[in-house]
């Protein structure tokens, strides 16, 4: 609770007047010599309970009535947002989550969470009177004075964006600002508590908490939770795009609210270089991943477009933007000694009929002269590289290349990037190493885009070499040993497969597994050339370099030019063509738990105002002097009722009647 006239609270001392009068009255007693003490003592004993309670209630009513009157005069403002702290606030730092997820609406026909909380903050600031409002929005992260609460919702720095938020950094910024700003301050964190925006494991939280704790005057931290029920929403997300000759292969994912179980038809509008087509998408469950093949105009060197779905609960996740550059062949290198393995790998990397795929065979002894500039993938079926070859491959991996290693069949040698092969292990006579389980949703053995699994269970081996080192396992043999491992090296990936496509090793050469595995890794490798056209909001690639000017090419929605840097869309930065999309984490439904919130804000003494984003709650704060006046009336009415004399019950004392008769 906050008071607009806190000085009047000094008059709260007046609430003690009834008690003081009571005590003075007790001291100002008159002494009387009394004969009938036995009745007095008995009456005193009997009246200790109920009567004393009544008397104390009367005193309490008088005291509380006076206190409520003074509270009402002090113009109290009450809400979960303002808590019960007294005194005037000098500065309010509003840390506003402007991430895309904040644009979801709590219900059909309502404003977005961001708009609702802005209105409430604006109303609360009006109640606070002369407090200074400083905005730190999640997109820019810079403190900015808000001249008046009325204009808060109209500022471009409070408008919707497609960016993400990093609350650890934002809270640190707030602490840094408050370190230079004297006075009583409060930090209001308005967020939907999306876990991806709070990142509870982020090590920067410790620094943020320390910054707040080191402030000379510790600010009150209020979290305006904007979680809760939302309107029905569907979202579309670009998983990746790859140009193959005159086609653009775009992987998309359409998701909808968790409670949606029934299949639904969703119009999908595709806009490519200004040409718009609409088709109906059947959404069988909560999400659908599919690949869209877009035929590009003949000879098109570059272009852009977007996929969009109709407006719904959150308008920020209804479009997925893409851009493409000139077609380039997919080049790969097979480093293996001549033999069956090298042949199969070359076939898998550039199957007949795949005109834009080229592969080059290289003997391991020449690996030091490997040129990877145009190469997407290196298939390495030889002892692990060392020396200059290892350096070439390391640089290749850092640049986003893919390296798929096959066992050399020789005893373990020097490790490559802390990964190595185990000893050669033959299967027992008459038995095979059989693939037992593999990751169906991730990696090159994942199920097809239509959900059908690869026939990887047909894979049998009689010889193997187990990959060693810190890498994630994507497929395992029956005995639990790794078949396929993945290790991310900067932007690239180092893959280890425990057998070779040689019939003295396994039936990997049957192509059931090898072909899709190699092709998928090739596709990943090719993305490093196409990836320069795709990025996410807030990434380094999306930022304009010095001297670059940003021009928006798409006309989706109604973008605010002032916020171009934080919006998804298709942009031209001088010569660069960029399709900027929302960060995928913005679609993640995970909300920070109360325990996690306690952990990240531990020691700040924060208060959580839940349902701040609900439209049903009209405001974050209310002037409640009327309630206190009603309380005054209630207290004094109760006091009057308690003071009413008891109904006199006539109980005749026979002897008294006689005595009265004698008197008359």
């Amino acid at each position, binding site marked *: 609770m906050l008071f607009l006239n806190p000085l009047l609270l000094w008059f709260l001392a007046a609430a003690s007047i009834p008690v003081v009068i009571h005590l003075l009255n007790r001291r100002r*007693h008159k002494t009387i010599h009394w004969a*009938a*003490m036995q009745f*007095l003592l008995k009456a005193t004993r009997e009246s200790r309970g109920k009567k004393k309670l009544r008397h104390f209630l009367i005193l309490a009513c008088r005291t509380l009535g006076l206190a409520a009157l003074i509270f009402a005069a002090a113009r109290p403002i009450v809400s979960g947002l303002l808590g019960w702290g007294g005194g005037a606030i000098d500065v309010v730092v509003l840390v506003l989550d402007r991430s895309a997820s904040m644009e979801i609406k709590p219900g059909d026909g309502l404003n977005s969470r961001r708009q609702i909380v802005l209105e409430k903050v604006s109303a609360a600031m009006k109640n606070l009177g002369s407090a200074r409002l400083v905005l730190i929005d999640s997109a820019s992260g810079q403190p900015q004075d808000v001249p008046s609460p009325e204009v808060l919702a109209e500022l471009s720095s409070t408008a919707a964006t497609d960016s993400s938020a990093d609350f650890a950094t934002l809270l640190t910024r707030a602490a840094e600002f408050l370190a230079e700003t004297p006075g009583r301050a409060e930090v209001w964190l308005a967020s939907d508590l999306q876990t991806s925006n709070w990142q509870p494991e982020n090590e920067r939280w410790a620094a943020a908490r320390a910054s707040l704790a080191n402030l000379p005057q510790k600010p009150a931290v209020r979290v305006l939770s904007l979680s809760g029920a939302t309107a029905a929403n569907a979202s579309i997300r670009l998983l990746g795009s790859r140009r193959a000759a005159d086609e653009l292969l775009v992987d998309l994912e359409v998701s909808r609210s968790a409670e949606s179980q029934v299949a639904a038809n969703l119009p999908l509008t595709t806009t490519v270089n200004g040409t718009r087509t609409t088709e109906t998408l059947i959404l069988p469950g909560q999400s659908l991943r599919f690949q869209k093949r877009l035929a590009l105009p003949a000879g098109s060197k570059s272009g852009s477009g977007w996929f969009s779905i109709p407006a719904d609960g959150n308008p920020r996740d209804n479009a997925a933007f893409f851009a493409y550059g000139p077609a380039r062949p997919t080049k790969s290198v097979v480093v293996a000694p001549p033999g069956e393995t090298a042949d199969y790998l070359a076939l898998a990397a550039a199957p007949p009929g795949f005109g834009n795929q080229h592969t080059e065979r290289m003997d391991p002894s020449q690996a030091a002269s490997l040129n990877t500039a145009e190469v997407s993938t290196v298939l390495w079926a030889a002892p692990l590289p060392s020396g200059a070859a290892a350096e070439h491959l390391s640089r290749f991996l850092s640049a986003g290349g893919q390296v798929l290693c096959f066992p050399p069949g020789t005893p373990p040698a020097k490790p490559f990037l802390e990964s190595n092969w185990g000893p050669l292990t033959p299967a027992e006579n008459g038995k095979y190493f059989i693939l037992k389980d593999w990751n169906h949703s991730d990696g090159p053995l994942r199920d097809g885009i239509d959900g059908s699994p690869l026939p990887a269970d047909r894979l049998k081996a009689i010889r193997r070499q187990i990959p060693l080192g810190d890498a994630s396992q994507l497929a395992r043999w029956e005995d639990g040993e790794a078949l396929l491992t993945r290790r991310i090296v900067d932007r690239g990936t180092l893959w280890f497969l425990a057998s070779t496509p040689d019939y003295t090793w396994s039936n990997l050469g049957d192509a059931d597994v090898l072909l899709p595995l190699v092709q998928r890794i090739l596709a990943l490798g090719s993305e490093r050339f196409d990836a320069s056209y795709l990025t996410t909001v807030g990434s380094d690639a999306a930022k304009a370099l010095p001297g670059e000017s940003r021009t928006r090419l798409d006309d989706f929605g109604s973008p605010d030019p002032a916020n171009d840097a934080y919006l998804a869309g298709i942009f031209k930065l001088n010569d660069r063509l960029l399709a900027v999309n929302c960060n995928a984490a913005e679609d993640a439904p995970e909300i920070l738990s109360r325990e996690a919130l306690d952990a990240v804000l531990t020691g700040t003494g924060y208060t959580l105002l839940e349902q701040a984003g609900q439209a049903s709650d009209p405001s974050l704060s209310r002037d409640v002097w009327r309630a206190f006046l009603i309380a005054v009336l209630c207290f004094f009415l109760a006091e009057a009722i308690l003071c009413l004399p008891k109904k006199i019950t006539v109980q005749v*004392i026979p002897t008294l009647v006689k005595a009265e008769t*004698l*008197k008359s």
Partner: protein
Amino acid sequence: MKYDFLDNTLLSRLGSLPIEARAPMLGNVAGKHRSPHRGSSVEFAEYRKYVPGDDTRRLDWKAFARSDRFYIKEFEADTNLRAYFVVDASGSMNFAGRGEAKIQFARRIAAALSYLLVNQGDAAGLSICTDKLHLEVPPSRRAAHLERLFSTLGALTPAGPTGLIHALHTIAEKVSQRAFVVILSDLFTEPAALSDALQHLRYRKHDIAVFHLLDPQELGFEFDRPHRFVDMEDNTALVVEPNLIADEYKAALRDFLTAVRAKCHDAAADYQMVLTDAPLEPLLREFLTARLPKSKH
């Protein structure tokens, strides 16, 4: 007037009313009160059969003539009355709220009744009790004895705790002959103990009258602010807000009065509750009239 508790006008107005005993008395001289013994008054009592040794002068010859049997004719024996005025002189009797002090009212009653008794030839004595039987003036029917009674009454100063119960038991033990015991007290003691004392007196066949003296303020208990109540008997003090306990106080007093009245009734005592602001004459007239034998009305 030498004694402020004597009212000549009152005495002259009440002079025509006799003080009657409700039970036969045992006096030492002839009087106007019934005696348990047969005597030679003009009041016929009964016939009884002659037994050898009876005085033949008391044979009813007319009855012998009618019935041929010897009967002795017996008459009531009239005797005088000896009254004991037991005045409670404990500290509480000094209380004077809206009326005069209870002790003063007791003085007026005792003086008026003793005057009337002596005036009609009966004996009046006085027992003053504080925490014990403090002073006794033996009953006498001489007019000069009244002066002693009055001076004793005038000189008594109430103080200390009440010893009424002990005094009544002592009187019951010491006074062997039937007497008229008049108790003047506020009776601020345990009703059960009072009952025992009254029953003791009744057992000794005394005629008992109780004047229960109360101040109107003790009954009304009306105060407008907190008071520090100091016990007049033992000086213990208690600060209370009278308005808060008035109901409980009145209830306790009501229970006490009811109990006292019941105990007096059980002991066949003539109970009179007296408010100290009430006029004395109607009170005594009522008291005396109620004691008159029915046949004499």
